[in-house]
């Protein structure tokens, strides 16, 4: 009988920390976390640190209070994306049907791969888990089931390095004893509310009459019931690798109230993001600037160009007006972010009146040289003049 449980959910364990530990094995087994120092937040914590009460996202200062001996590792820009791509590339050696949900999590459909039975398939998936560890040093948890819903619950069940198989036909029994909060869409608040109404475990759902469920869950009650039975027919969707947006943000060490400084930082983000857009051979049409105040409330404003561009120049003039539009309150900012969306293919409508065309052609040429320089010469960066900060001595 061919394999029946063919959907695999892969979930990397403490991904950012694992990426860091892959190159710093001496830190394995310690309480460590990746996060911004000073005013940042913890974005990933080792299981040892989690045992002390560190969770994500948690302000770093709080994490250091609950776990004073926490080893704080700074973000390594670019590293996690590279390792993630390598990890999914390994997945693709098993099946072309790989759906990346996020940087550290995704689904694999092994259905069309012709495994003669479930045992064979399980052996192959264990092989993948081992390979990701051997070659990349990243521990991952796997869940194998008949569909996405159950495989996802399974993979999260025994982290880290979990490996849970839910044989076909046993989905309802597998889910029955689990907390109701394990079902997708039921968060901590809902879970608490449901517990008050006597729904603590997934099996409790099946025991209730339909009228009851309709009044508890509202219009969506039928989908909750089918989830509780482990039913799910969503296919594994192979996503396009194309980025839908490019963004960057910066949390400041101390709140900034100076508009000129914020503008300089935002322009610097344009300078960081545009080379990425050019490298991907894309162009962006819309720029959105977001500001976050000291009290974490935030506002944003965006604007589109008449025509998408892969050059910094057309976006600079938008920075000041967008900041004025977004930054309405008279208080200092803790964070600013710039996001490019409306990403388009590089096909470019040429213009008849070539004056502006020539200027763009020259800028593009300049940009490609700068990109090359900034990529190769490590440390030595060619920057635009607006990035030179007017310090006390007039130099950066």
């Amino acid at each position, binding site marked *: 009988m061919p394999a029946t449980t063919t959907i695999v959910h892969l979930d990397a364990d403490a991904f950012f920390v694992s990426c860091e530990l892959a190159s710093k094995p001496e830190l394995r087994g310690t309480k460590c976390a990746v996060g911004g120092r000073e005013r940042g937040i913890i974005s990933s914590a080792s299981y040892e640190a989690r045992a002390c009460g560190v969770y994500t996202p948690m302000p770093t200062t709080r994490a250091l209070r609950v776990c004073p001996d926490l080893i704080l590792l700074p973000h390594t820009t670019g590293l996690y994306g590279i390792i993630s791509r390598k990890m999914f590339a390994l997945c693709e050696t098993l099946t072309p049907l790989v759906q990346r949900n996020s940087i550290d999590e995704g689904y694999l459909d092994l259905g069309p791969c012709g495994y003669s039975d479930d045992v064979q398939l399980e052996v192959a998936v264990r092989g993948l888990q081992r390979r990701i560890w051997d070659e990349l040093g990243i521990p991952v948890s796997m869940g194998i089931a008949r569909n996405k819903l159950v495989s996802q619950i399974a993979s999260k069940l025994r982290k880290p390095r979990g490996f849970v198989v839910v044989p076909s036909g046993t989905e309802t029994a597998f889910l029955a004893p689990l907390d109701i909060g394990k079902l997708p869409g039921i968060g901590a608040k809902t879970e608490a509310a449901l517990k008050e109404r006597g729904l603590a475990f997934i099996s409790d759902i099946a025991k209730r009459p339909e009228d009851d469920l309709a009044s508890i869950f509202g219009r969506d009650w039928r989908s909750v019931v089918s989830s509780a039975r482990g039913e799910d027919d969503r296919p594994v969707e192979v996503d396009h690798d194309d980025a839908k947006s490019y963004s960057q943000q910066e949390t400041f060490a101390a709140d900034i109230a100076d508009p000129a400084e914020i503008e300089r930082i935002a322009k610097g983000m344009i300078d960081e993001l545009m080379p990425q857009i050019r490298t991907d051979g894309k162009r962006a049409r819309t720029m959105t600037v977001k500001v976050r105040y000291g009290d974490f409330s935030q506002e944003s404003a965006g604007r589109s160009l008449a025509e998408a561009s892969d050059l910094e120049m057309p976006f600079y003039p938008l920075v000041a007006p967008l900041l004025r539009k977004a930054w309405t309150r008279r208080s200092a900012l803790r964070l600013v972010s710039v996001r490019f969306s409306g990403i388009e293919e590089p096909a*470019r409508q040429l*213009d008849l009146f070539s004056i502006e065309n020539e200027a763009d052609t020259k800028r593009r040429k300049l940009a490609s040289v700068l990109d090359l320089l900034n990529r190769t010469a490590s440390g030595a960066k060619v920057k635009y003049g607006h990035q030179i900060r007017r310090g006390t001595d007039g130099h950066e």
Partner: protein
Amino acid sequence: MKFKINRDHFSNGLAQVLNVVGSKATMPILSNVLIEAEKDGITLTTTNLDLGIRVKVKAEVKETGAVTLPVKRLAGIVRELPQIDVSFDSAPNHQVKLNSGGSVFRIMGIGKEEFPPLPDFSDDKIFSLEQAELISMLRSVAYAQSSDETRYILNGVYFNFRDGKLSLVATDGRRLALIAKELEVPAEKAGSIILPAKTVSELLRMLDKGEKLKISFNDRRAAFQINADNPDTGLVDSIYLYSKVVEGNYPNYQQVIPKETHQRIKLERELFNECVHRAALVCSDKSNSVKLKVSNNLLEISASSPDFGEAHESMAIAYSGPDLQVAFNPQFLVDPLRALTKDEIYFELKDEVSPGVIKTLENFVCVVMPVRIN
């Protein structure tokens, strides 16, 4: 003021002047039509200050005078009146009584004094043209006007009276259409104007009512006298259309029309149009281009969009030059192909970054910049 008028004639006249009035007039009077009764007819005038239209309609005037009424409501009422005979009676307080069969309407008007006068047909520079000819010339180029307000200079059709011809040009910066006809232009009358897009569309709607039209213009405005005498429609004399012009220098269009011909392909217009149109059915906002591949006696047209699919069309052509490949926005090809009426056109190409030129043997050129696919 008192007159009797045929309902359909009245309605025809109002329909001619209705479009000028925008939905959000800046002054209430600009939502109104000025109705003036003279000895054997009435004139209807509307204006939005940039553009004004005046028509004359046959009527039996018993008492001369003038009043203004909200034109949209009035046109709606007149259209639906029950009888063909309509009597119009305006009191000194600008209240108008409209009678037709058993229907009586009383409408509040505004006095004529507030209505901004339409400048007269000046004798600056005057040319006489055939209506049918101007309409076909305008249709050949109007689609290429820009609607991008930041390029306001291109939001219209350029009329150039010079060197023994009238040239009409429209461009949006990515394609340019030009048509010319021979016309006697005395040196002192040579000149050019950019006629705003709105005026162009009104002209296109109005022309074809008679044989001749006269255009007069100076640097700031243009006026058209369009012969419209027709007993069936009830319009008499001519329609008068006054328009401000787009002020500024039109780009030097001569410099973007390629001087040399590289590869010339003769095409059946309708067939080419159909193929491009069909291939473009798979295009999307994100990938809006069709690829043209020219090889020995074969033209292949293809298009694709990554999230939908692809299309291939092929056409037999007479061609023995080098292989060529170039992509265009399909709309930029379809627009001139649809506007033209000749069965055969010429398409001139050079390479993937040089403009394509659609031509007829009759002084028509459409220059289209390609889409460059990296």
